[in-house]
């Protein structure tokens, strides 16, 4: 019974908190409206995440988020350097195929987002069966090293977060 009305309690809390932060005023009315959205939205969207991971490791996820934030800063500087100081003829872009060990859809989404936000890479497409991800790299001399870095730095951590 509770499962039916609260399929995702954490999402309910998050939506309510986000609503309060958006309107930026804690009143009873806002709280009720936020809670209403927090209950209705997960119920309505539940069909879209049938196999959502049941257990995650919040501490490791927090460490991962911190790592990604740091990498975003580094990525910004690296890409700015390439844009400013490399001549167009010297920029060697490459397509890289990264085979995936992750099978969970939510984890792959997170990995694709991470790849796009971090050093010189944009995730472009998945293989039709979801076993491989196609990555475009702005500038690299060594595509294999990029592939290994994505696998060891991000995918390995995500494997631990979504067991």
């Amino acid at each position: 019974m509770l499962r039916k009305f609260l399929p995702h309690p954490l999402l309910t809390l998050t939506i309510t908190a986000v609503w309060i932060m958006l309107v930026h005023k804690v009143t009873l009315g806002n709280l009720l409206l936020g809670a209403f959205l927090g209950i209705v939205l997960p119920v309505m969207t539940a069909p879209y995440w049938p196999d959502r991971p049941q257990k995650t490791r919040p501490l490791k996820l927090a460490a991962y988020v911190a790592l990604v934030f740091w990498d975003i800063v580094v990525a910004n500087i690296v890409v700015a350097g390439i844009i400013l100081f490399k001549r167009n003829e010297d920029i060697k872009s490459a397509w890289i195929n990264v085979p995936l060990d992750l099978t969970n859809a939510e984890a792959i989404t997170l990995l694709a987002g991470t790849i796009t936000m971090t050093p010189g890479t944009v995730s472009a497409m998945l293989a039709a069966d979801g076993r491989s991800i196609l990555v475009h790299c702005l500038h690299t001399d060594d595509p294999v090293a990029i592939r290994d870095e994505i696998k060891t730095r991000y995918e390995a951590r995500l494997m631990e977060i979504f067991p």
Partner: protein
Amino acid sequence: MTFVIELVIATVLVVSGFFGLVGSYGLIKLRDSMQRLHAPTKATTLGVGGALIASMLYHLLLKEAVSFHEFMITLFLLLTAPITANFIAKAYMLKHVKLSELPPTGCDTGWAGYEDPLSREE
């Protein structure tokens, strides 16, 4: 003390402005759409992020009020930027990138955008 705070905020603003400018310059400078995609997804993130940090510091230290809107903008930006980039990449690839230019998938099926699901069932 106020001067030091203002100096810090101004520095963050200038740095963020610099990265925003570089990101926009990258849009003009780079050669094709796949390369251009790298400029706004990265250089501009730090540009927007810096402006938001400056705004948060300003409200926190000079106005003495906590502001959550910047936090929300950061959250939505991080959620939407990769998805937009992915849409643009896919649309561009289907129109301009031939399958022969891409590396093989290394698994049973081809790349999702190029695979015709109907042809596989036969």
